[in-house]
Structure formats: C-alpha cells, structure tokens
C-alpha cells in the first residue's frame, strides 16, 4: 500500500473497513440516517452543523441583536440545540443574545435529573439559565395535579401549562424568539397525530418552521423522547412505533410526511382562529378565557373535567372560589406577572 513512512504517519484503516465518503481519509463511523452515506465523526459534525446553519439562513430565522430563548429540557435534543446554536452564533456571527429557558413541571424524580443537565448546559455553553415552574405560575405542580385528577387527561394540563410557561418565561426574559429542539421526527409525528385526531386547524400550522404565538403546539412531550412517568398514552405510542418502522423501510419518509403537511390543501379560513386575549390573565386566546385559566378554574373548583374535551365551557361569571384555594386562584396569573403584552 504505502511506504513505511506513510504507515507511521497515517495508520491505514483496517483492511475491509470503509472510508468516509466525504473526506475519504478517516474511517467511516456511522451511516447518516437521512442519506445512508457512510461518514466519519468529524465530517458528521461538519455537515450537521452546516445544514442547521443553512436552514437558519434560508428561512431567515433570526436577525442580529435578537434575544433568543432556547427551550431547554435537559434532553438530548435541546442539549444539542443549545450547543449548536451557541457554536454557530459564534462561528457565523449571528449576533444573537442566547438564553436557556427551562420549565419545571414539578414532577418529582423525572424533572430533577433533567434540570441538573440544563444547569450543566448553562455552565458548559455559557448561556444564562431561567427556570419557570408550574408552582410559581399556576400554584400547582404536576404532582399536585395528578393527585387531584389521576392519570386521565393529566397530559392535557401539562401540555397547555407548558406552552404558556414557555411564553411567560420568554416574556420575563424579554426575548424576541423561542427556539425548541423539535426535529423532523417530532413534526412528522405531529402531522400524523393531527390527521388521526381530526384536528385540521393544527394540521395546517404544525409544519411551520417559525414558532409564533400559534406555532406548533406539541401536547405531551415536546423535547424528550423518553417516556414521562405520568404518561401511559398508548395511542401516541402506536404512532411513534409506526414512524420508527417507517423509517426503517424508507428513511426519507419522515421528510415526505413533512412535505405532505406543508402541501395539504387547507382553506385559509380554517388556519387562524380569531386572536383575542384572555379576560383574566391577558394571554393570547381565541375564547374569553385562555385554556390554562379554564383548566385552572376546574382544578381550583374541584371540577377537573372543565376544559377537557370538546364541549364548550360556559364562560359566564364564575362563582365564589373555595376559601382554602383562594390563594392559588389569585396566584401569578394576575398578581405577580401582571398582564402580558405579546
């Protein structure tokens, strides 16, 4: 093959092992799921980061000087997101002011570890961290909620509260944009689930790349792939398994699902529900009361079914709150954080 000098400088790859298709020098360490190319580690980092950079540039996701909050769960997706964004920000001079924003749902044992990871991320990547907790915002932790209502519909509460928590946290930090670690698989799954549920309005919005006030609304597990301890949802499990099987047969199917989602012929009248604000807390809402206030009312009045399902909840005057829950009722939504201008 080469001279002994060459061999000393560059130990040749073992006979039979493959070379990276990109650099042709290093040993291929993995197969890219997207293209099935065999590629070495260094090149993988390079193409991966470059593709993210291209996505950011081609979709003009940011403007210089913007304050951007990275939704950080401590999971692999948001950790990678934090790393890549801070790296690209530095390398390509995006000029962004980056923060880590984490939500503490108050699930003992589940969130504790992830919050530790996020605190490590704060140090590793030098990104300031802000944690918003359900307890502070709503007066209830998920542990409390599950104790009150059990394991049915708890995901609905968590999802609604989390969505708002991110937005409220972002408002506190006075950020211009929120970035989350949703990847193609998440979006593809969301497209499928919206078809299965008949949610045409969400179906039209869920492939948008820009997270606005009515951007993608993941309901249960926006950042982590690992199962939340409170979620026994078999239905979502089927969809996830289906997507995994699909990827095995045809890797590009994930992107094909997203392409379908983008091309669905949905009439524009179904896209945007009328945007108003919640009477109680000022959050964006198409009804008189935002979803979180409706759900909270239910919790505080011991009527946990309020706001669950399709029946329209009467939005007339609410009765007296139970005395012992009164401090929860007047919590954060109006007092501490005031009204929000979004």
């Amino acid at each position, binding site marked *: 093959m080469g001279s002994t000098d060459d061999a000393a400088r560059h130990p040749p790859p073992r006979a039979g092992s493959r070379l990276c298709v990109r650099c042709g020098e290093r040993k291929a360490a993995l197969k890219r799921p997207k293209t099935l190319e065999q590629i070495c580690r260094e090149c993988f980092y390079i193409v991966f980061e470059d593709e993210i950079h291209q996505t950011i540039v081609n979709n003009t996701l940011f403007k210089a000087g913007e304050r951007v909050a990275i939704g950080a769960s401590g999971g692999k997706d948001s950790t990678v997101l934090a790393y890549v964004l801070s790296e690209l920000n530095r390398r390509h001079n995006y000029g962004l002011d980056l923060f880590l924003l984490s939500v503490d749902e108050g699930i003992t044992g589940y969130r504790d570890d992830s919050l530790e990871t996020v605190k490590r991320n704060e140090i590793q990547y030098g990104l300031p961290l802000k944690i918003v907790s359900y307890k502070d915002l709503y007066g209830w932790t998920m542990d409390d909620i599950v104790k009150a209502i059990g394991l049915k519909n708890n995901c609905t509460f968590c999802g609604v509260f989390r969505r708002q928590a991110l937005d409220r946290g972002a408002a506190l930090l006075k950020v211009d944009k929120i970035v989350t670690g949703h990847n193609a698989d998440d979006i593809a799954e969301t*497209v*499928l689930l*919206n*078809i*299965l*549920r*008949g*949610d*045409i309005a969400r*179906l039209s919005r869920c492939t948008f790349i820009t997270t606005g006030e009515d951007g993608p609304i993941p309901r249960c597990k926006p950042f982590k792939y690992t199962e939340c301890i409170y979620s026994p949802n*078999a*239905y979502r499990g*089927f969809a996830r398994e*289906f997507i995994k*099987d*699909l990827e095995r*047969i*045809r890797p*590009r*199917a994930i*992107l*094909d*699902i997203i*392409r*379908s*989602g*983008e*091309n*669905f*012929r*949905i*009439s524009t009248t*179904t896209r945007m529900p009328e945007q108003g604000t919640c009477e109680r807390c000022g959050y964006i809402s198409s009804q008189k009361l935002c979803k979180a206030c409706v759900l909270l009312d239910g919790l505080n009045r011991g009527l946990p079914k309020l706001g669950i399902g399709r029946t329209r909840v009467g939005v007339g005057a609410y009765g007296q709150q139970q005395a012992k829950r009164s401090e929860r009722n007047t919590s954060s939504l109006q007092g501490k954080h005031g009204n929000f201008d979004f």
Partner: protein
Amino acid sequence: MAAASSCGGAGCGGPHCSSSAAAGAEEDVTSERLRRISIAGVCGKCDGGGAAVAVAGGVGMCRECFRAHLFGKFKLAVTSNAMVRPTDAVLLAFSGGPASRVALQFLQEMQSKAIQSWETSNSQALPVFGVGVAFIDEISVLLPKTKHETETAIEDIKAIVSSLSPGDKAVHIAPLEDVFSSESKDVESRLREVVSMIDDETGRDDFLRSLRMLSLQKIARENGYTKIMLGSCTSGIACHVLSATVKGQGYSLPADVQYVDTRWEVPVVLPLHDCLAQELSLLCEIDSLKTQQLLDRPSSGINNLVASFVARLREENPSREHTILRTAQKLKPFSFNKFSANGYHDFLPSRLRPKFQNVDGDGSTFSEILCLICGGPFSESELRNLESAKHKVQKKTDLYTAYCCQSCRSQIVPVDTNTFEHFFSLLPKFWTEKVDTASVSSLRDQIEDYLLEDSDDEN
C-alpha cells in the same frame, strides 16, 4: 388513487367461502359468531325485538336493521352525489372481497327496484341503468398458485355474479397485462419486465394499482360503460390517506378520497365511501354473501405497514377510521371531484336539481396537470419543475420524467438514467401518448403565429 380491491388488507375478516364442501363448516362458524354477537342485546332501532347482531352508530341492531343501515349509506352516497343516471352503464370493479361483494349486492338491489318501478310506471320514459362486473386478474404478478386453484377461483367469481338476479350481467375477466395488448404480443413478459425495473417494493405495489385502474378504464371504454364503481370503503380510504401522506403526496391526496372522480375517461364513483370494512365483512357473514379472496394480492412495503397500523388503531378505537376520513374531507377537493359536464344533472327530479346548480359548468375539462403514472394532480413545485424541464428538455424521456409527480419519480421511475428510456418505452402507450400530444400542442402554440392556414388567400 383509491384501491380497486377491498380495503387493501386493512383487516376485512370476511369468510373465505371458496367451495361448497366447506359450506357446512362455514355455517357453524357463522352461527357461532352470530350467537356471540347476539349477547349485545335487542335491536335498538326497530320494535321487532330481534337479537342485535351488530353495533353501528352506537346502537345494537338486528340483522334487517343492520342491512338497511348499510344499504341506506350506499343509497345516500349514490343519490346525493348523482352517481348513477338512468342512462348509465355501470361497471362494478369486483375484487372478490367483502366490500366489492356488498357493492355488487346493493347495486343489484338498486337495479331491481328501478326495474320494478319502471315496469309499474306509466311513462317508462327513462330507462334503467345497466350493470356489468369486471375482475382484474393479477395472477401473473401474484405468488404462484396452482392452475387448479386459479381456475376454481375464477369460476367462483363467475358463479357469484351469475347467482344474482335478475338477468345476466356481463362479467369481464381480464388479466392485468391486457393493458399492453395493443402494443405487444407477449403481454405477460412485458408486464413482468416493467415491474422488475422498479426497485422499491412500495413503488411496485402502487404501480400495479395504477395499472389496475388503467385496465378498468380499458374494459369500460371498449364495452361502452359510462361509470366505474369501486368498492372502496372508509377503511381502505383511511389507509390511503395515511400512506399518501407518508409518501409526500399531501397535495394530491384529496383527489382520491371523494365520492366522485372524473379525472379519468370513464368517471369513477365510490358509493361505499362511508362504510367500515368491519361492517361490510359482518354483513357478508350475516347474509352469507360469498366472497373469493384467493386471488387477492396482499399489499406490501409501506402500504402494508400502514394497513397494520390502521388495524391497531381500529382495535383501540373503532371509529378512528371515520375520524381519519373526516380530516381528509376537510382538505380542498379538486374541480374534477364533481360532475360538471353541461346538463349532467338534468336527469334528476327538479326538486333535487337546485343542489347542483352551481356545479354545472360549461363542460370544459379541468385545468390540473396530472401525473403520468398515478394521475395525481401536480403541486406548485411539481408544476415549476415541469415548466423548467419543458425548456431544457433534450430527450423525450426527460419530459416523461417531468410529467411524473415527485412521489412516482422517487419510488417508481428507475434511478439509473440509462434505464429511463427503456422503462418509459415499456409503459402503456396510453400514458406516454398523453405527454406526446401535450408537448406537440405546446410546440404548435409556440409557432402558431407563423403557420399559414390553407384557407388563407393572398389575393
């Protein structure tokens, strides 16, 4: 394109009564099943107090009410979409499975009733629609069966149709490879060759479905039929919704999930659109309607994965298939998803005509560009791609490729450009001719100003 066969393997558990010898055993199974179902209580619809044999729409129903419930859905689909005119000759695509078996039964019932009214009517002005049955045999691309098995199966199918009264219905049994009959002597090897050029399993499956539609169109055209009726039911359509989504066909998806599809030379209608596969199978059991599924080609690749997925969803929630269909119905259909030929609705009684008033157009053909292979309408990006291809085109095959939708291009058309030409040369001329005429007429448009008409007289 909606599947012509029953529900593409989405779990029709219909009985496979293929021979009279097994009939005795079959009956035991059926009555056993009925006894189990009867535990559901009494019929909630009628006062007859009959045992409930099925649950539909949340209500337990006796045999008669259940049958009436399904027939009602069939009839409603036919009448509210003006599917069958008195002057029509309807060709029913019969796969042998439960769904198309029920379609055959119901269609024949409708015809009988129409004949009865005609016989007792004073004017007898309007005729009664005609009915024929088509079975496309895919034996040459199926896993090998013995000659005896296939012959028996075909005889069964003929027997099923002839057992219906009144009268003789024409049965057209054609092998799939007949789509090549006008262009080739050895049609069977031609079919095998073109299929072998498709690497992707799902692509092969979908390609065969497209050929099946072409075959039905050919039979209809050559025998003077004016409508093709498919037995596609909710379950099959729901599977199609998901598999089309997964293949990136989100734009064209609405075209295949409506009641009416006039893209084709002979319009296609789907009267079992709102019936679940389970209900149709159950009806076949209850009424001992014979089915013959030996020659069913099971779906493969992604289509098969989707079918299993939908089956699991169905177990978890029986109305999931309806929900999937409802979502798809909220997508905007295309102009060819309704009858808009001038005067089409004239056959309707005047009280029903206002419903269709805004629909009757000037009879002009729709403007969408359709994929050469699957017939799917082109999305904006596919149109852009076609426009730029038209200008850059070097060879005919470049143009053919540009007339294929993105999904067909990636899963059916061979990747190797060297085999392109050969592949397109093997395709049914009916498909490639359309591109040839389109490109010729566009050429003509470009030079129109410079052409002299014969009648031009310089003097």
